[in-house]
């Protein structure tokens, strides 16, 4: 009987990259788990929390908790920053409110980022994925530093047939997204993005893989504006790929 997991698609993937939601389900099923999707889910509340508007984040977070409280099994999110928000941000958000705090802790104990879930929880590293390209991994900040997840995505990518992994110079440097930061401080955010793009170019990778759609949107959004080829791809896409899969960007 396979494990059952609850998928948290995240608001950005739900709205802008629905195909990634399906890649995630595909990957999880291939890894041997049954995937449920509580359809009332919306968002984890991070954008409002990061903006400092905690009273606007609360209702969203409460809705998140209510959505997943009535479900069983691990919660898997294809996003380091959303996972970090639920695991750590909710402690700040619900501090001082004992009832909600303990409900939040109950949920926090169940949530995993996708690559973390596959490697640490399931012990799965081989998904029979096939993606012949030169790829580099961009470690998104919350995933890397908040959650301490770094080897897991790399392990998964190393097992992808045909993929040639190369190192991204200064890989651990932030891409400059930072959520509302990218809108409030576009100049610095862009300077940081320029650096990241330079480093991607230097790595000569065809594709840069990330576990966070925010970073992906930032990098591709900048490349598209410059009329340059898109490079950033979510890890679920790579792991879900099979021989003969459709063109990556089209």
């Amino acid at each position, binding site marked *: 009987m*396979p494990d059952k997991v609850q998928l948290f*698609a995240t*608001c950005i993937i739900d*709205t802008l*990259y*629905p195909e*990634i939601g*399906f890649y995630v389900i*595909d990957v999880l*099923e*291939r890894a*041997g788990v049954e995937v449920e999707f509580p*359809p*009332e*889910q*919306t*968002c984890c509340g991070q*954008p409002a929390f990061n*903006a*400092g*508007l*905690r*009273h*606007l*984040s*609360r*209702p969203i977070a409460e*809705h998140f908790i209510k959505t997943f409280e009535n479900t069983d099994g691990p919660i898997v999110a294809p996003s380091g920053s959303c996972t970090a928000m639920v695991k750590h941000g909710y402690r*700040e958000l619900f501090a*001082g*409110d004992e009832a909600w705090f303990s409900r939040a802790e109950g949920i926090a104990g169940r949530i995993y980022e996708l690559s973390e879930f596959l490697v640490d929880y*399931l012990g*799965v*590293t081989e998904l029979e994925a096939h993606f012949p390209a030169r790829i580099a991994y961009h470690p998104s*900040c*919350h995933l*890397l*530093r908040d959650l301490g*997840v*770094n*080897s*897991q995505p790399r*392990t998964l990518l190393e097992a992808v047939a045909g993929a040639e992994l190369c190192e991204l110079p200064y890989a*651990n*440097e*932030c891409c400059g997204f*930072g959520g509302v*930061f*990218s809108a*409030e*401080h*576009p*100049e*610095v955010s*862009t*300077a940081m*993005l320029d650096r990241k793009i330079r480093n991607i170019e230097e790595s000569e990778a065809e594709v840069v893989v990330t576990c966070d759609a925010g970073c992906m949107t*930032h990098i591709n959004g900048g490349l*598209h*504006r410059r009329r340059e080829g898109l490079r950033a791809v979510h890890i679920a896409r790579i792991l879900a790929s099979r021989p003969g899969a459709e063109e990556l960007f089209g």
Partner: protein
Amino acid sequence: MTSPFRKKIKEALADKNLQDALDLNAERRLTAIKAAYASLPQDLQSVRKQAHEVREKVIENLGDYLEQFISNAQDNGIIVHKAESANQAVEKILDIVRRRNARVIAKSKSMVSEEIHINTALDEAGMKVVETDLGEFIIQLNRQPPSHIITPAVHLTRQEVGEIFERELNVPFTEDISELTAIARKELRRTFLEADVGISGVNFGVVEDGALCIVTNEGNGRMVTTLPETHIAVMGIERLVPTMADLACMLYLLPRSATGQKLTVYTTIIRKPRQAGDNDGPGECHLILVDNGRSKVRNSALRESLYCIRCGACLNACPVFQEIGGHAYVGVDGGPTTYPGPIGSVVSPGLFGLKQFGQLARASSLCGACRDACPVDIDLPKLLLRVRAGMGSPGDYDLGEISVGRASANAPPGIRLGIKIFSWMASSPGRFGIGQRFAKTAGRVFYPSSGWVSLPRFTGWGYSRDFPRPAEPFREQYLKKRAASIPLREPKPSGERESAEALPPREQPPLRQGSELPVQRFERELTALGGSVIRCDSKNIGKNILAVLELNKSSWIQAWDRDKFPDGLLEELNNSGIRVQTEPDPDIKVGLTAASAGIAETGTLAISRGLGCPQTASLLPEIHIAVLNQGDIYESLTDVLNLAELRESSYVTLISGPSRTADIQMTLTIGVHGPAKVIVICFN
């Protein structure tokens, strides 16, 4: 409609010199720091944890520790003044310098003294105050505030420094860094000798001993706390550690985090003013304890920011700081703050006002590099988020305020509106679905032919990035169809959870395994720092000293009293024609001292002030020769800090090699104010 902050950011981004300087700083620092951490005798994470706990304990019990510290310091003869505000601190300092009829004041680096703007006050009172730290000296001449907590002139190239010296000191232009350093050395040597008052900062106050610890590299810190008749130390009230063992813990981390050194060249511990028997030192030692908002911060949600030991590591790790530099961090009205970077974006609003400086906390992508870099493990992203939520007022230490964020968050109006709409939608699945459909339709209407949306510039995002057009949402597609099923795989054993940064492999710790003798380690460490060690039999000490003097063409030395050395040593030197005296003289090139102890792991000498032991002998001359008994070499810093003999001394300096600086364009120069050569005659 650009705010002063955004304007300064844009200027910084467009400033090529600054960009090059910041890149160089980040590169050099981060490499050096990584290597230095690898040399820690214990695992980095456990030392950080220990350091965090020490500082947490201090801040939690600050009142009690302060009381004890003040009492012990007073017992030592240090005159303690408590200053609640910056103005009070300034008043007390002015009072002291006026009573002294001071004309020239020599200052060594102190961030808290910048905070209280003491230089302006002293200038206005008609006194000449000279910054003697090389970086501070440069920016003082350039009439600028520091742009970094540790390297104040990091934003200047050597050409710019050459121009500044040419303009302000009337010297011919040079951009050669050792020449520039030599110019500063000559200029400041005059200042040190004529100063009536020395003002210094304090890195740590040690509660159990009532002592002040100051770490420096150039020798100016020793100068200003030894030569003038009056010493004023300025210290923030939060800079305490309970015991000497706790001091050792901090000293393992501070130099490594700040400059990638195992120890700074000079680690000075001041207990008392000049005692009856001491040959030199200030007759009066004052300590100004500055609050200036720290108690308020302690009572606020930003309390943890007080753990900071002002190492600057977070500045060097921050990708935003790397782009904009320290001077860009300004308040709403465009005014500067003493503290930039990640820590500055928390303490500036905390100490100087949320309204003015809260905006700094929004200029962060919350990447967390600062938290990783912090030797005391301060959770800076958490604190930055609290500032954004408008927290940090006295009394809001208890986080129970759920209404926080309504009025007090400093989100700009556009963001507030956007988030309000988003929040309304995202708190209900029905509204969320409607919102998604609306976005999809709007995208189709305004951008029909492209999968991408070019938002207008005012959105911020649209400044330089496009945005994918919203498609049919996942939830709707999911509910319409199922994803394909794939067969099971054999689960493999799970891997280790890894910490974020992989550190380079640790240096061999030879001592604990007994494979390298302390004296061998001592020699290796000191040689790596540019010092030299001559090992010999006790009867050959004199011969070796004479050889050094011959080599350096010197026959006149300043030395400690004869009874500090092995019997007959000074007589032997006399008999060979060497002129020996205890008093300093500007023309003496060599100083000879004995060392009370040595530290093997860092190649360090412990030099204590006392009867017949002038500090100047190891400070003023170009060459310092120290006689050290091999049996007095201890393994670690902790061992030496706890030595009874040193804890009774009124003033001890731990010397690790020749004086040095990298304040100009991050380039190392040996020989600044303190001796340029350190030679240890190590006998058994």
